[in-house]
């Protein structure tokens, strides 16, 4: 019934790379409550589209409930003065990411429809050490890598060691490194 812990290939090596501090434990602060409430209420207005008193009142009550349940989930211990700049830089990062995703998509489309696909693809597993520190930036990197066709993040260890699967060597050669530099700029690390 109980499968004992299997050592995965990634965990086998306790190799180099600066160990990070512990996850910032989920903390509740007044700033995070207020910010969460404002964000949620904006989304509510978008969803609802009705601005009479009853629905606005229901919206206030719902946002309050969700804020109480999960303010520490959305913004654990926010560093409030830094946030607007971070969001602005993140929004600037998105068009670049979309462009890269589009280019990579066309590459994978070419592979998929090519009659001799089996000769063109050469799947392999690559890895590299990321110098990103915080959880958020690492997750952004991992999801960006996964979103770009041709590369999938398999594992990201607590040291920031990233393992990813590539469909052909071309896809994985340069892109993750460029991405890492960009994300480091966004998160100022």
């Amino acid at each position, binding site marked *: 019934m*109980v*499968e*004992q*812990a*299997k050592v*995965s290939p990634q*965990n086998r090596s*306790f190799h180099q790379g600066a*160990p*990070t*501090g*512990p*996850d910032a*434990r989920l903390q509740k602060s007044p700033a995070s409550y207020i910010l*969460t409430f404002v964000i*949620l209420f904006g*989304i*509510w207005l978008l*969803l*609802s589209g*009705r601005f009479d008193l009853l*629905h606005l009142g*229901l*919206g206030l009550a*719902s*946002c309050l*409930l*969700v*804020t109480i*349940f*999960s303010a520490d*989930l*959305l913004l*654990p211990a926010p560093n409030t003065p830094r946030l607007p700049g971070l969001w602005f830089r993140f929004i600037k990062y998105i068009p670049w990411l979309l462009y890269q995703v589009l280019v990579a998509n066309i590459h994978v489309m070419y592979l998929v429809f090519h009659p001799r696909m089996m000769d063109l693809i050469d799947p392999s597993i690559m890895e590299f050490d990321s110098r990103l520190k915080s*959880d*958020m930036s*690492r*997750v952004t990197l*991992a*999801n960006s890598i996964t979103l770009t066709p041709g590369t999938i*993040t398999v594992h*990201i*260890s*607590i040291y920031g060691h990233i393992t990813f699967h590539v469909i052909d060597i071309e896809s994985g050669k340069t892109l993750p490194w460029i991405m890492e530099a960009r994300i480091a700029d966004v998160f100022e690390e």
Partner: protein
Amino acid sequence: MKLVALASALLCGTILLFGTAEFPDFGDPDSPAASHVSPRYIEEAMAETSAPNIVTAVLADYRGFDTLFETAVVFSAAMACFFLLRIFGEDERRPSEKLYRHLPTGITLRIDPGGKVPDSPEFERIDGIWIPHDVIVKTTTRLIIPFIQLFGLYVIAHGHHSPGGGFQGGVILGASVILYAISQNLRQALGRMGEAVSAVFCAAGVFIYAGAGALCLLMGANFLDYSGLAPLFGVDAIQARSLGILVVEIGVGLAVMSAMVWIYYNLASMGRHQEGL
């Protein structure tokens, strides 16, 4: 065993198919439902309850009894899961050793019964079935759970105008809590919404529904005839029916949400509430 299941499913299907022969034809304009019931709902629902979504009006107002007992069925399903599966006390096959992971180094400690438990925030208690330190899933779900919950509440609140209502919104809310339990672990989910809380909410949902009906009785109207609540809300009878539907939907949503979460807790941890999926 598969053959027995297949045979019984086929048998059931055959019986049901034979039963349908007695039904009126599909879309038959002379059948009782199509000649009396549906036209009345379609023509009068908007004027009588001011709910543009006829399905909601039928579900929560015209056929309120039906929905009341559907909610009761959901509640009793959760109760049945609890009585059948819940086991109190420690698991004798796996004595109460505890596993802790030191986050900065990734080293796992095993603490035997009676040992000293580390209480520094650098340690994280992990499941014995070995949960990977999957920072991607954890962080992403952390970010989207509030929005899923907001959407669930939106679906409950806008049952009058858009598809949705208590059942759908309750399912989305319950799914958000289950998502939290899947992405973190069962213990943290229990800390956020405990077993007692889910049980009380589940009963409270049914109570809100039945209580709204009983309140109508007290105000001198029929059971679940929300127009009797007009003096309480301070509006006319039609608006009162609309608000009554909303109150009932909230009750249904509460019951469905906590029933889902409660059933999940019992099923995922095999009744012990120690380690889950």
